[in-house]
């Protein structure tokens, strides 16, 4: 995307670069023109990359000591905690790292929703991102099964049983997934295999995600298209790298707080009880990051209906770029949508909260209201508000604020219409 062609200085570098233009790629990554007005919500891409690498590195070390066998898995985790040098640290980073990964990804997704980053021409970035998110949920779920505690076992039982809701072939599919007639040793083995595989699939998708990002370039808080490079942009290095580093360090302080001082607060105490197929825990709950979907699943009295609705809650996000009819990207200039955005945030938080509660009484009512609103937001609010809303005037460029720049809404719209 750089305007000027990169030319290697030394002969050797030129020889290599002519054959594999890695140096050109490196130069592109450092020069990459980035909007200068990106706020801290934009630092979560870098933070997420850090999370992925942390999970992979700690995971590889854990896999050296872990034993994927129903009789030995729990003991091997205790072996890691007690006998492996700094095993407790590596395991706590990995288990809390999953939570931090999801915290960051939720902020990243909601940032995209607020600033319209999923809209044209960035639909493919958005869709690849959602595929990463789906794989993250699969990896996290299977990872939670590996310690073979009570919540591992019963969580696996509940989630794999969802597939039995499929008419006709449901039971066969469930047995096929288990590799047995219940969650058992073959299930644990394949979950371990897939848990090791998925992060590398995610890594591949992350490369595509960043590649797709570098075609149109970053969206920005104002949400307008900008000329690249121009006075509205800064080179990625050092401006964005240092800012990402600062945000990452703040994130790491919070991360370290969990790892060193409350390493088990995000987990469930029942998972320190070895798996027992004969004893069902009083409440089977997934990890916090899956709770909103769990609430949606349980809000429907019919099993198949619940499963369909839960998967729809994720897959509806894939068509989001086409459900949003607004020509303006950033919610900063969308006074009506902005309010609905925050209602959606509250709605999802509420769904997460009721997902942790027993599915009865007021919690069931709230789960149903929350579920209905969740779908209404995407199916009704987004298309309708996009048409009816009178948006605020949009500046012509990042450097010129609305008032001093004298941009008339009509002009700004034209700029935006080209999108």
């Amino acid at each position, binding site marked *: 995307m750089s305007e000027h062609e990169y030319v290697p200085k030394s002969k050797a570098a030129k020889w290599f670069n002519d054959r594999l233009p890695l140096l050109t790629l490196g130069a592109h990554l450092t020069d990459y023109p980035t909007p200068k*007005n990106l706020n801290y919500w934009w630092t979560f891409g870098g933070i997420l990359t850090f999370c992925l690498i942390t999970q992979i590195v700690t995971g590889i070390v854990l896999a050296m000591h872990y034993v994927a066998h129903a009789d030995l898995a729990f003991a091997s985790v205790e072996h890691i905690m007690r006998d492996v040098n700094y095993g407790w640290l590596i395991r706590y980073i990995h288990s809390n790292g999953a939570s931090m990964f999801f915290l960051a990804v939720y902020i990243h997704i909601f940032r995209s929703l607020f600033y319209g980053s999923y809209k044209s021409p960035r639909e493919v970035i958005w869709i690849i991102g959602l595929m990463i998110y789906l794989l993250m949920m699969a990896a996290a779920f299977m990872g939670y099964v590996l310690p073979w505690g009570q919540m591992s076992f019963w969580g696996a039982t509940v989630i794999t049983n969802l597939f039995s809701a499929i008419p006709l072939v449901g039971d066969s599919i469930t047995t096929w997934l288990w590799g047995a007639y219940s969650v058992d040793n073959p299930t644990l083995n394949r979950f371990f295999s897939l848990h090791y595989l998925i992060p590398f699939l995610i890594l591949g998708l992350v490369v595509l995600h960043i590649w797709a990002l570098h075609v149109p370039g970053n969206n920005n808080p104002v949400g307008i298209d900008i000329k690249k490079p121009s006075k509205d942009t800064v080179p990625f290095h050092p401006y964005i790298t240092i800012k990402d580093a600062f945000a990452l360090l703040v994130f790491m302080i919070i991360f370290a707080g969990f790892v060193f001082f409350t390493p088990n607060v995000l987990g469930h105490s029942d998972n320190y009880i070895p798996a027992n197929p004969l004893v069902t825990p009083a409440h089977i709950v997934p990890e916090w990051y899956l709770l909103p979907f769990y609430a949606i699943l349980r809000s429907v009295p019919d099993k198949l209906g619940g499963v369909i609705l839960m998967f729809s809650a994720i897959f509806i996000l894939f068509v989001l770029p086409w459900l949003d009819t607004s020509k303006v990207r950033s919610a900063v200039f969308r006074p009506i949508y902005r309010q609905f955005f925050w209602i959606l945030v509250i709605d999802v*938080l509420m769904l997460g909260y009721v997902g942790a509660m027993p599915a009865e009484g007021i919690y069931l009512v709230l789960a149903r209201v929350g579920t209905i609103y969740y779908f209404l937001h995407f199916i009704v609010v987004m298309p309708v508000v996009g048409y009816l809303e009178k948006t605020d005037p949009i500046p012509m460029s990042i450097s010129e604020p609305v008032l001093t720049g004298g941009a008339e809404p009509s002009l700004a719209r034209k700029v935006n219409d080209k999108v």
Partner: protein
Amino acid sequence: MIKSNIKLLVLSFLLFISLRPLQSAEMVDPIKVDWSFKGLTGTFDRASLQRGFQVYKEVCASCHSMQYLSYRNLGEPGGPEFSEQEVKAIAASFEIEDGPDSQGEMFTRPGKPSDKFKSPYPNVQAATAANGGAYPPDMSVLVKARKGGANYIYSVLVGYEDPPPGVTLDDGVYYNKYMAGNKIKMPNNLMDGLVEYADGTESTVDQMAKDVTTFLAWAAEPELEERHKTGVKVIIYLVLLTILVYLSMKKIWSRIDSEV
């Protein structure tokens, strides 16, 4: 605008959580104890750990296993820190089954520090059968495996009461204020003066419950002291680095006409 929205959001969420109905009246919240191992720099009380081990060995160990601990752990830093001789003597006081030898026979020998804690029963089924159908759980990670952690374990140990009128208990079932459902198959094993503490501490029920709970908390998290110490260092390091990076960022961004 965004700020006020976030405020509204947080407020409504807090309001929502505060409106949740109280837990069912049957379960009493565990007693809150001011443990020495609580907090950011919490450490174990060494003497309490050693006394707690004595209570475990003389009382709990006749039914409960602690299969993930080894005798050597008793001498490691951050734990009861028995001396090397003491650890060897403790280990040697147990007869451990080993083998097979070159003749293919199993044999017993005195324990070594590298041996795991000897379990009172050969397997879960035997333990269950010997205890009226209730398996005495392995205590290695018990404090982490119970909601409420150390407070809960301590509360159950001191929470035995006569059943209130109207509650009938089967044979071998006891009433406990803090246990879920209030029915527990473990009898009240602690009574004043049950063990004779080597350090002369008076062995009241409360003292023994606190000591053994401290011991169990260490058993579940033997890394706790190292974790706290390392954590403080890591956070200080990260904060200093964050400040440096922040200043560098301000400097770099001052080259252009834009706010960070």
